[in-house]
């Protein structure tokens, strides 16, 4: 446990010493023949290995989409499981090409880590989970409670702000990994488990009796989660950004994994631009003309990705909510492909 950050930091120091700042990530990835992607070690719906050892989840699909755009093969990804506190060091040191690990976009992370957020894959917010038997209906009834939280997250600070702001006392117990946190909550060390709401639903599935636990209605923070890339490589930044935009645009234009081949033959001008039958937008990104079709064939549009991993088609059954498209009552919005 303690050796990981040390090793990473040493790697960071060594790598920083040799690596030129303006790394050509796309070339590095193509030469390697593999995308290296940092994900969380086991968060159902976002990134977790299934019973056959395949990684699944939204964060995972983001990386598969990038790999599909580059190699036309969504399997050419090496997933690097990272704990919350090691994730930025792994990105800074060049161990991974993209960090897709339910990371909240904040000002300080955007400016001080030498990395940029490329977009928002999931609009989340922090909430609380308690045992039903406590008969608590609101987070405002949690005065003097013990709270379990994962260390190295924005959650810790939001928690402090919330209890201070409402003049409530609490005891915080911070663990290194999500699994340890949940285990301590389950064993009764804490009354409350707090995290992003999507994580609460995901971790509840791991509890012995999910029905005995309830997520309280209060959402105490804004947690826009998205992928990160290193500073200093604008082309790579554009690619990672536009892979997600392509998926959101695809949903908006009605392109799905199933009908992608038919839609590619369409005469509609916006579809022709996206599929590269008109113009060379893909090549402008440093990719191929058929980049759009590659992504959708591999991982589907945004809505499909959402449903499959966390929405109606998954065990988590999370409603689209804020993550619905902008023209359907949500706030997911992508600049046009033109």
């Amino acid at each position, binding site marked *: 446990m303690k050796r990981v950050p040390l090793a990473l930091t040493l790697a960071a120091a060594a790598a920083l010493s040799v690596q030129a700042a303006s790394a050509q990530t796309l070339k590095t990835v193509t030469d390697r023949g593999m995308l290296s992607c940092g994900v969380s070690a086991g968060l159902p719906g976002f990134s977790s290995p299934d019973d056959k050892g395949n990684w699944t989840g939204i964060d995972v699909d983001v990386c598969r989409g990038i790999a599909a755009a580059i190699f036309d093969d969504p399997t050419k990804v090496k997933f690097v499981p990272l704990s919350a506190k090691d994730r930025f060091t792994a990105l800074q040191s060049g161990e991974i090409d993209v960090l897709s690990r339910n990371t909240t976009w904040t000002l300080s992370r955007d400016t001080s880590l030498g990395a940029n957020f490329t977009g928002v894959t999931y609009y989340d917010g922090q909430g609380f989970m308690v045992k039903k038997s406590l008969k608590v209906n609101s987070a405002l009834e949690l005065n003097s409670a013990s709270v379990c939280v994962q260390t*190295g997250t924005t959650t810790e600070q939001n928690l402090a702000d919330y209890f201070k702001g409402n003049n409530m006392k609490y005891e915080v117990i911070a663990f290194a990994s999500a699994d340890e946190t949940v285990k301590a909550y389950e*064993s009764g060390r804490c009354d409350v488990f707090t995290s992003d709401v999507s994580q609460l639903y995901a971790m509840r599935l791991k509890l012995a009796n999910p029905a005995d636990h309830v997520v309280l209605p209060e959402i105490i923070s804004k947690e826009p989660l998205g992928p990160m890339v290193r500073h200093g490589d604008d082309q790579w930044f554009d690619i990672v950004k536009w892979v997600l935009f392509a998926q959101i645009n695809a949903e908006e234009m009605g392109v799905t994994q199933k009908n992608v081949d038919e839609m590619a033959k369409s005469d509609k001008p916006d579809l022709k631009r996206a599929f590269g039958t008109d113009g060379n937008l893909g090549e402008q990104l440093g990719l191929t003309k058929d980049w759009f079709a590659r992504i959708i064939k591999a991982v589907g549009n945004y809505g499909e990705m959402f449903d499959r991993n966390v929405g109606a088609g998954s065990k988590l059954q999370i409603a689209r909510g804020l993550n619905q498209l902008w023209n359907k009552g949500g706030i997911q919005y992508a600049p046009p492909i033109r």
Partner: protein
Amino acid sequence: MTTEPRKPPPQYVLRVKRALGGQAGWTGLAVQILFAAVLAWVTYEIVANARANLETQRIASGFGFLKNTAGFDVSQNLISYTGSDTYTRVFLVGLLNTLLVSGIGIVFATIIGFSIALCRLSPNWLVSRLGEIYVEIVRNLPLLFQLLFWYLAVLAALPGPRQSINLFNAFFLSNRGLVIPRPIGQVGLDPFLVAVAIGILGSLLLRGYARRALFQRGQAIRIWPYVLGLLIGLPTVTMLIFGVPLTFELPQLKGFNFSGGSRVIPELVALVVALSTYTAAFIAEIVRAGILSVHKGQMEAGSSLGLSRGDTLRLIVMPQAMRVIVPPLTNQYLNLTKNSSLAVAIGYPDLVSVFAGTTLSQTGQAIEIIAITMGVYLVLSLITSAVMSVYGWRINRSLGA
């Protein structure tokens, strides 16, 4: 023609030459200077290059972050701390928590270790087998698993705060830890502490006097009645004059947890138990080796003098064994301190957890924070080994070696 004998070069020149250049003399010195220069240059290059790259990638660097507000809370703080304090304060809180767990761990590990060693050497078959089983099981399982075992096993066995095990309405044991009455200092506290200090000092002086009398004049002086008077009588008298030194605040169940009273968090207990039982297994073997390294004739000599087995061990064997025991024992103390960084696995807020963990991921300044943390462990280890060196030196001196 007389030949004048050539004067040998003065001693100090030779000594300097040997000290700096070793066997090779001045050439050796030149090589050493060159080596030091290369080392300094490489270090400079690494630091300068890392700094330049951090700057071009616009990763924050420097130690300015230490003055920023931390914005998160810590479950156990020995000094007052709130979320609006700085990262420097977080560092101190974490450091004190590490020191606390290491200090308590070392004391318990030593006590358990010595006891197990004596068990293993016991002529009683059952006792010595039990000692052996303990050592073989505990030292052969990974520490992290033992830590998680103690934490989760202890937590699972304890009831929730509302069903706490209650002793005299003052002590409550639950899965939130052990809640005890909190002592609150009163007017009588200062005189009381002074009296206790005088008592301890006086007793030590008396003991020194009695020892000298025994060794120099062969005169045995009975000091225990005076010691008893100093240690118990004196504080009692001050208490009668100045009033009670302490009152106790009783814990009460309010809402989810106890309010009032002091609390020992279960993370601390689990960490201390795991670290001290684990390290004790190694210490037991070191102590056993030390005792066995003393010739068995010493034991026989002791019993032929009419000393009991315990007295022989205490007065004759142990002082000689300590010479062998101290250096590897120091290693174990250092290991225990360093192993305490596993605390993060069970949520104990030690230095690695709150500083190299939370602070690092909030500020992203990995190089600075890891450097500080490594520096702290290095200093702690050097202090421990310095103290143990002095102790070892005193033992050797007293044995005339």
